[in-house]
């Protein structure tokens, strides 16, 4: 595997933002996640929960509710506006004000014709969903207190609304309230506190299920407006409810961080009189669960602890596989760290600012596993705040370390870094070409002479940058295909090629000399999570969300023999069952047969000259190899060398001096920065 000097970087204080809302689209199998910072992410549920799209948020833009209407995604927040997203270009399409004060909840009906929002002023507002916008239709009967939660009856004729201390059922046709059901307050001291109906679910058989701040999950009958049954789930709040598609299972998320499942089972076997019975409890969170969603085969939950937990329901899964394991998503599936390899600079991307660090230096040599004496400490050179309210979408630093670029939804800024001894200054490059108004992904060429900017319609703009200024060179456009936004760019070392990958799994390769599309890699069913062009052979190495790997020869426009062998022999079971995607592909110039990959938990070197492991061989064999003699080692070694020394990895980069930079963000550090969870009595404490 080789020995590397490792810069173990732990000064990237990345804090993932808490999850506020979830919305699941059954037809497209996409899960939309809204975070506290106003960003919206779209995960592909059947593609190993790969984070396909990220729409960055804005300052003071809290999202309270998220709703799919067909394939369109809407959100509403406390700023009082309803926002529709342009998922193709991964940006906000428009925002209209509902004029009802802060909006607490948004719900679309199953027919896809209307959106209902619940406002602070006590109104439920209906919006008609038109072809390319939404239009206010009318208010339902105005109530005295704010509307906290909403749920449509599947027929679209009734709406249940959760409020302070009560639940109202509205007839959509007339707009009048049909029933008013009072939720009990807690006993004792909490008697004086209002009971907030945090969540409501309307079932097709007329049962209304509510979760409230007293900790009860209550079932109501909408015919009579009476309570059928109540389950005491917790001492704190029940914050979220979600019912499965066929309405036989319900999950409730509480502020204690537990998810409770209820199932609609017959009490006497073989008979039809079914009841909702509390069954399983899932404890995967440490903090409040703000949103739950029951999808076909799993329960997805997210909350203040900023992790998205996918808990598979084993009874719904036909056969157990890697896709059916418990999955916790902590970090975005994008790179937040850029590295200027030649100058040893690291650029960290935070939502609202950028940080530039210079790596430290060490001296002396040590045995593997030991830590070296640090001669010079790492140094923070720059703290660059974003102008405006938008959060950063993407950023890049040139390999020479001279240029820094970032883009928000509205602007793109390019800076030049002057670094003479200890004086650091930056100058903003004004007069950027017009095409550089915003970018989905940014990338510098290896000689730092060009900037690639991925923009709308899957096109890549090519801009040459020099001391004198910045000049638009041309636009690279795919010959055909979709217009989805590009999320990955890779430029070749020799400056001849650039490859782009978009969220429709398309990978286009452009020839930079002709500035024309060179070819398109055959489309694979899973999303590309990382790719890189080999400096020596100019082969494009791609990693996919389902952990498959492909190597495509750009010059020959076909898969390489090695890639075909991999596909023929198949990958090892343990490799395929890993649950985080690979986020970077690197090549070692000293050893052209080596490909370096990393995901959140490990660092891996693939030696293409060695045989591939089959399912019978020991996959993690480093320890075994150590104990063997030199000759035996040859027969036992295989292509995959996995290093699990580092944990919670955000980025790994190979520097020209054969040292590795490993950026870690320990989950424990994140946990300590979270607000304190609800105090719970723990046994034996």
């Amino acid at each position, binding site marked *: 595997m080789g020995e590397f000097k490792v810069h173990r970087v732990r000064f990237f204080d990345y804090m993932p933002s808490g999850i506020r809302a979830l919305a699941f689209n059954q037809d497209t199998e996409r899960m939309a996640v809204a975070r506290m910072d106003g960003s919206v992410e779209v995960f592909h549920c059947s593609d190993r929960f790969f984070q396909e799209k990220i729409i960055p948020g804005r300052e003071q833009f809290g999202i309270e509710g998220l709703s799919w209407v067909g394939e369109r995604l809407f959100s509403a927040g406390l700023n009082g506006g309803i926002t529709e997203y342009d998922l193709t270009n991964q940006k906000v399409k428009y925002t209209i004000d509902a004029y009802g004060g802060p909006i607490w909840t948004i719900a679309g009906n199953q027919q896809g014709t209307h959106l209902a929002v619940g406002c602070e002023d006590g109104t439920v507002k209906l919006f008609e969903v038109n072809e390319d916008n939404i239009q206010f239709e009318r208010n339902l009967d105005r109530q005295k207190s704010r509307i906290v939660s909403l749920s449509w009856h599947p027929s679209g004729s009734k709406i249940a609304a959760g409020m302070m201390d009560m639940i109202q059922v509205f007839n959509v046709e007339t707009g009048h309230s049909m029933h008013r059901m009072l939720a009990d307050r807690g006993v004792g001291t909490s008697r004086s506190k209002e009971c907030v109906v945090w969540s409501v679910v309307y079932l097709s058989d007329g049962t209304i299920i509510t979760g409230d701040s007293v900790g009860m999950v209550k079932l109501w009958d909408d015919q009579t407006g009476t309570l059928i049954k109540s*389950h*005491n*789930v917790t001492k704190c709040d029940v914050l979220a409810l979600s019912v499965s598609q066929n309405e036989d299972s319900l999950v409730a998320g509480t502020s204690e961080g537990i998810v409770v499942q209820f*199932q609609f*089972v*017959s*009490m*006497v*076997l*073989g008979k039809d009189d079914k009841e909702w*019975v*509390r*069954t*399983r*409890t899932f404890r995967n969170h440490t903090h409040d669960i703000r949103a739950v969603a029951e999808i076909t085969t799993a329960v997805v939950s997210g909350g203040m602890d900023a992790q998205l937990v996918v808990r598979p329901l084993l*009874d719904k899964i036909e056969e157990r596989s890697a896709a059916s394991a418990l999955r916790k998503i902590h970090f975005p599936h994008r790179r937040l760290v850029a590295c200027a390899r030649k100058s040893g600079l690291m650029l960290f991307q935070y939502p609202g600012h950028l940080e530039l660090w210079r790596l430290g230096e060490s001296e002396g040599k040590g045995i593997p596993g030991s830590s070296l004496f640090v001669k010079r400490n790492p140094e923070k050179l720059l703290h660059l705040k974003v102008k405006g309210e938008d959060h950063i979408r993407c950023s890049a630093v040139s390999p020479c370390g001279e240029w820094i670029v970032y883009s928000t939804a509205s602007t793109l800024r390019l800076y030049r870094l002057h670094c003479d001894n200890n004086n650091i200054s930056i100058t903003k490059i004004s007069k950027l070409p017009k095409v550089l108004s915003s970018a989905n992904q940014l990338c510098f060429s290896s000689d730092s002479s060009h900037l690639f900017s991925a923009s709308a319609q899957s096109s890549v703009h090519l801009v040459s940058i020099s001391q004198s200024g910045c000049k638009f060179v041309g636009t690279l456009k795919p010959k055909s295909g979709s217009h989805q936004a590009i999320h990955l760019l890779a430029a070749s070392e020799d400056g001849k090629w650039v490859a782009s990958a978009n969220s429709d799994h398309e990978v286009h390769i452009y020839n930079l000399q002709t500035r024309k599309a060179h070819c398109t890699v055959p489309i694979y069913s899973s999303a590309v999570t990382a790719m890189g062009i080999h400096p020596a052979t100019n082969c494009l190495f791609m990693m996919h969300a389902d952990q498959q790997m492909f190597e495509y020869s750009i010059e020959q426009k076909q898969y390489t023999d090695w890639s075909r062998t991999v596909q023929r022999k198949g990958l090892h079971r343990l490799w395929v069952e890993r649950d985080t995607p690979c986020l970077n592909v690197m090549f070692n110039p000293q050893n052209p047969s080596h490909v370096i990959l990393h995901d959140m938990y490990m660092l891996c070197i693939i030696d293409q000259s060695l045989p591939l492991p089959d399912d019978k061989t020991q996959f993690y064999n480093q320890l075994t190899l150590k104990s063997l003699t030199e000759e035996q080692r040859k027969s036992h070694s295989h292509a995959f060398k996995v290093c699990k020394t580092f944990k919670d990895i955000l980025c790994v980069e190979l520097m020209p001096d054969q040292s590795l930079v490993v950026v870690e963000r320990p989950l424990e550090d994140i946990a300590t920065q979270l607000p304190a969870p609800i105090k719970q009595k723990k*046994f*034996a404490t």
Partner: protein
Amino acid sequence: MVEQSEVRVVRCGGSKINLRPPIISTDSRFVLCASGDSVKVYSTRTEEWLHSLQGHTNQVTGITLNPANHLQVYSCSADGTVKLWDFIDGILIKTFIIGYPLFAIYVSEKHDGIVFLHIAMDTDSKNECFQLVAVHLPKSAEQEVEAKELSAVSSRISPNPSCTAFGREGQYIAFARHLQLNVYFFRKQKTYSFSLKATDKKGAKNAFTCIACHPADDCIATGHEDGKIRLWRNFIHTKEYTYSTQHWHHNAVNTVCFTPEGTNLLSGGIESVLVQWQYGAGNRKEFLPRLGGSILHVSTSSDGQLFCTSHSDNKITVIESSFKVCGVIQGLVKGDAVLTDLMIDPRSKALVLNGKPGHLQFYSLLRDKHLYNLDIVQQEYIYEAGLDQFEVVKAAFDIKGYWLATVEERGQKSSDLEFSLKLWAYDERTQSFVLNTTITAAHTDRIMSMCFSSSEETTMLVTTAEDGQFKAWCQGADADTQQDQNFWSCDFVGSYHNLKPTNCSFSADSSLLAVSFQEVITIWSPDTWELLTTLCQPPGVVRDLCFGQLSCSKYLIATTTRNLLCCWNLLTCALEWSTSVEVSKLQPDPLSENVAAFSYQSKHTDLFVFKPNEPRPLFTHKNVCSEKMHRAVFVPREEPLNNCDESSQWLNRSQLYFLTQNMDLLTFSTATEEDRMLSSSKRLVIDDSVAVTPFYLLLGKHRQQQQKLNTPSHPAADKPQQPQGSLTCLLLSFPSLFFPPEMEMESSEQEMNSEKEEEHSEEEMEACDSQQELRAQGSVDEVTPKLSKAQERELKRVRKTDFSWMAGLIDSKP
């Protein structure tokens, strides 16, 4: 070996009452529990032992009410029979011979005439494979029927009988084994299996420990090793089955039980807290803590008004549905180990041994009743594993029962041993022992043995310890203290060549004290503290030492570790005889010359009874039990038997009880004893040839009842020595304790003829007389005459009839 069949080993007295769940009769008046070879019937209200159902010849392993007749009970036993009893009258109705050792019994209303039994798989006895079989009980008029129709339900089930339960309306039976739950549907004849993982990431231990089925819903509650309770539903689907988990117990759940209506679920475990979970209401629960030992079983009465829990300290607690303890039935407390010898309190003739931690218990073997616990350590016991706490390790009574000496010890495992010697005096007024002297550093090392002198005049205690000394303690007037009370102080310290003393024993007249120092036995005169002689028979360290009794008091018997049993004549100071036998326990009978020796050889224990004056054993019993014998004691009989038979003669004056390593208290019973028992139980049936008139029922019966009431309260000798209760109070306090439920009648009667108070008091006088008569007789075998069923029915009828005519008569009388 014909003689041997006459004397057999039985479990009698002090047997486990917590082996199987107790059952409550349908009218909630009786609690039945399997106890040794019999089924005991207790009253729920008075906690008193009413009678026992005797007839099985081996451990009773299961009892259940007959679903067809709630006045009958089925019992199964390891002797391979199922017996049907009328438990109110104690009549054996039928015996079904199955032929295999049985371990549990289950019945269901829906399966008429079928019982389900656990039998051991005969293929390999090593792995203890148990089988669940359904047995069709043949309908025939005969007393003894052989049931041959066995059909297996499942061939591999858990040996734990609480892992099997019937479901709603007997439609299915659920049984669990290790990590698998099986549900067998009778109609479909199909088994559904559900498995849990052995452990999960959080280290949960998922093995099943108990099971219960909801009476109305299809819901199975299971208890698990890590304290979780799971409620299973939808178990006709192999995939869409579901369960919910509740977790309160911190250790294995021993028992779960639904109340008859299914509104609540009761569970218990090692915490000795009874938990009541509201069914269907998630985690709402109630607790009844501090019930004593860990809960092993819970059962409910059919109306749900009473719960019964049985505990590891051999106790049954009767609990009202309002979670109030209303009765405690205490058996012989069996702790982890009996460290003290088995002793007999010379006063109450009660068996004394370790009971609750830090206590000595007094147990009446004759009445099979726990009398009281004496707190020796007088410190709070903390229920935590691995905590080193004071334990009573030695105890001794003086010959009259005035003094009790105890040694408590802490730190057996660690090097720093703490121990103290306590002396307790009997207080006539409080009828219990009162601490007289505490000696904290009696010796510098562990006390090995101690004994009181056996003379009547002076009491002296001798202790031997590992520090190489033996000390004699006397109660003497201490010059320093000016008090009336006399405390104990050291009188003499003796040693012999710095050897470690092991055993000590006084001769019958206390004129000699024998102390063994490893291989050497030294004989001392307690009056002058002069070393009289030494006896030695190497090789082998002396293990046990005792003097002969009565006419054989000139003999000293010792056993050594090198398998030698020696007998010295102290008059000649010469070895009289010796024989090579491995003796693990030597026990002299204080009332005869006999000495019992238990020998453990080739995995079974043999008993030899001999007299010291002749080397030939009087009686031998091979293979008494398979474990090593631990402790033994001769318990004097109330009334000597007169067996002429040579083999059973040695049991005439006292009875030999012994304790095995498994903490089973066993004894020897003779043929004559059993005959007498049987005849007395037969007498129950013959009754009532006299014509029944209302007056007879009212007065005659009442008298009879009084007699009956008083008979259990035997002569004064074995009066329970209730601490803090004076003798005079006892008589008064008894009735309320002893009233069997039939006595309700009396109150109604009193109301009726309140004017006849004088007459009534006369009756009581008579009752007292009769009691005295009985006391004079002092007969042990007088067995309680019981109302037969016919009588009772008559009584009920009379109770219902209108007595207004009689009131008229009485009014017109003057």
